[in-house]
């Protein structure tokens, strides 16, 4: 109940970094609007926001990847928490969590075995696999943590990367106490 903060919010602890926030929300029209609107009103640029249903009917889980100062973000998360549609907000940054992202890529088919082997190596580094291949285009998927995804995408630039679609990060707390989260019963 006590919130002890000796640092002035948004001033002294202005560590600017990427945060991954997990929010349990009520699945109703307008919830996404309300959450994204609050972030917009405070000039946060959302890197990615994913939302999907949970095992609890009527509840959705949002994963928000966002860049910002620690102090500002802490204050915004407290404001998010007071939205009627928001049941729980957790900043996963700095605590154990799993984070994955799905990417679909379209590639020019490799020329020669060496090129193909290198490409497969890059895909393997980011949990990838080739999904379709024909003479003119290959399509593949990557599933990995954002860092690995970013490294693989950089490497794919020299392997005929033509198009990509990123799903945005999904994340889950992975410390020992997080198996039952705030009212949501475990499966």
């Amino acid at each position, binding site marked *: *109940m*006590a*919130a*002890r*903060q*000796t*640092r*002035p*919010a*948004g*001033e*002294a602890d202005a560590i600017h970094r990427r945060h991954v926030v997990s929010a349990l*929300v*009520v*699945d*109703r*029209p*307008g*919830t*996404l*609007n*309300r959450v994204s*609107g*609050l972030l917009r*009103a405070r000039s946060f640029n959302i890197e990615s926001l994913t*939302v999907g*249903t949970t095992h609890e*009917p*009527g509840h*959705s889980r949002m994963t928000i990847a966002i860049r910002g100062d620690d*102090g500002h973000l*802490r*204050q915004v998360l*407290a*404001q998010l*928490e*007071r*939205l*009627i*549609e*928001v*049941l729980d907000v957790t900043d996963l940054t700095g605590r154990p969590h799993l984070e994955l992202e799905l990417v679909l890529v379209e590639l020019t088919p490799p020329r020669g075995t060496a090129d193909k082997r290198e490409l497969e190596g890059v895909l393997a580094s980011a949990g990838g696999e080739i999904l379709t291949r024909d003479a003119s285009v290959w399509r593949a998927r990557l599933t990995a943590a954002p860092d690995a995804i970013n490294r693989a995408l950089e490497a794919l630039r020299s392997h005929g990367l033509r198009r990509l679609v990123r799903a945005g990060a999904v994340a889950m707390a992975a410390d020992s106490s997080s198996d039952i989260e705030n*009212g949501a019963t475990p499966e």
Partner: protein
Amino acid sequence: MTAVPHPSAPQPERQVEPRIGARAVCEGLVREGVTTIFGYPGGTVLPIYDVLREFPLRHILVRHEQGGAHAADGFSRATGGVGVAIATSGPGAINLVTGLATAMMDSVPMVAITGNVPRALLGKDAFQETDIVGIALPVTKFATVVMDPDEVPFAVAEAFEIARSGRPGPVLLDFPKDVLQEETRVPHPEPYELRLPGLLRPVRGDVPEADELTEMIAAAERPLILSGHGVQIADATDLLSQVAERSEIPVAHTLLGIGNIDETHRLSAGYAGMHGWMHVNKMIQQCDLLIGIGCRYDDRITGKTSTFAPNAKIVHVDVDRSEIGKNVRTDLGIVADAGDLLAALLRRLPQSEPRTEWMAQLASWREVSEARSWHGSGAWREGRLSADYVVDQIGEATDHQATLVSDVGQNQMWAARYFGFRKPFHHLSSGGLGTMGYAVPAAMGAALGAPERETWAVVGDGGFQMTMQELATLVQDQIPVRIAVLNNHRLGMIRQWQEIIYDENYHSAELLGPDLVRLCEAYGIPAWRATRPDEVAGVIAEARKAPGPALIDFHLDEAQNVYPMMLPGKGLSDMVEGAAE
């Protein structure tokens, strides 16, 4: 996201006689204790107006929906209840927005009901269609469209629960017309049936952090309480005085904290902030413990936060966790209802000895600051009519027992400084949003909500002209609001800023207005004009005799400024005091 049934989906086994959604809305209002609603009809809410006579609900036909929203807000603030405004779809709904934002900024509970086009037409740019929920989202605590008649009973009950619980705020319910016309058999929920897992409710009861605060008080030599609106929202003004007396700590107040403590109380320090009393601001800068209770430490109180209360440990008590640490460094943050915290302190605090030195310091600062700026420029002493004198005389005439609703700008500061408030819920003002045009319609709501008290609106000629259409409402319903127009034929605060900050470059500060006495004659409202100090007491006495609304046009000395003043970007230690004083 896919829509799923409303989380409070009704239990099908409990059914009642079918009635249309519009009746369910009215039943819900009556169940919530609503007696008065402020509205303006239109195509999509006509189903409600069609059944309104069946319910013990007094409908006040406002002249503009903004007036309705402010009236509902004024009703809430004067009574501690929940005001209700109704508007039709499209323009009607949009006209509520200023009032919703005003209520949101000041944590005022109210429920706005809007109609919308029938469900089949939603999203088709139908006549008078607008996405009012989308527009209202950032300026309401909650807003939703009710898409099924079966959801109506729960939606209304939830709206009131959300509006008044925890940190209060406005809620908007949008009803497509056919939802109001179709029948439902769903009963109204009992309180225990409301499931609002996302609603933050304060933990009630003892506040363990009061231990630490008690120790901090014991260690402090120059403590000060800064009390805000939250104390009145928690209905905890008596507790505040008791804590002050037990701990011998002086109590300052914010604009919306006016009435937290009787201004004549020996421990009342006074009004703090941008146009607050110098002695109060000095105390904030010199105290070694600042206990903010139910206030936001907003920029009109703190000025430059890096120089705010430099010698103090800062304590912040608020029911809303997101307020703590938002604006100023906080040494101890306590998330609690103001009343619970004060009660917890009372259980712990020993009776303190008088803080003789600290109070003597306050008294000497007060003497200087009141001598310098009491009655502002002092022009009234020279026979020129000044606003501070008018406000003071209204306070004297009503024995400081009237509800005073101020507008925004100089008039607001004069009212805050010179009326001399004694009780909670007697001062209403748009503090956070600073909504010009608030006073007259909000006073209308306040007068209906608290008819046992005399109600005065103190308003500048600028703000008055923004919502003066409500004069007709005052006449039609004979609502006894006394309007004191502090008329300087100027946008006074604009003029003041341009004089002090913009090198006397007066642009758009001069304001032409109608002859207010003749305007009132046209409306059938008794009205007087005063141009000299010796006329003031007489016209106030006359206006007080009027059975219905009355207006006094006080023609002021035009160049009067509000001092002291904290300039933008400056702190409480460098206030401008005004050359004339």
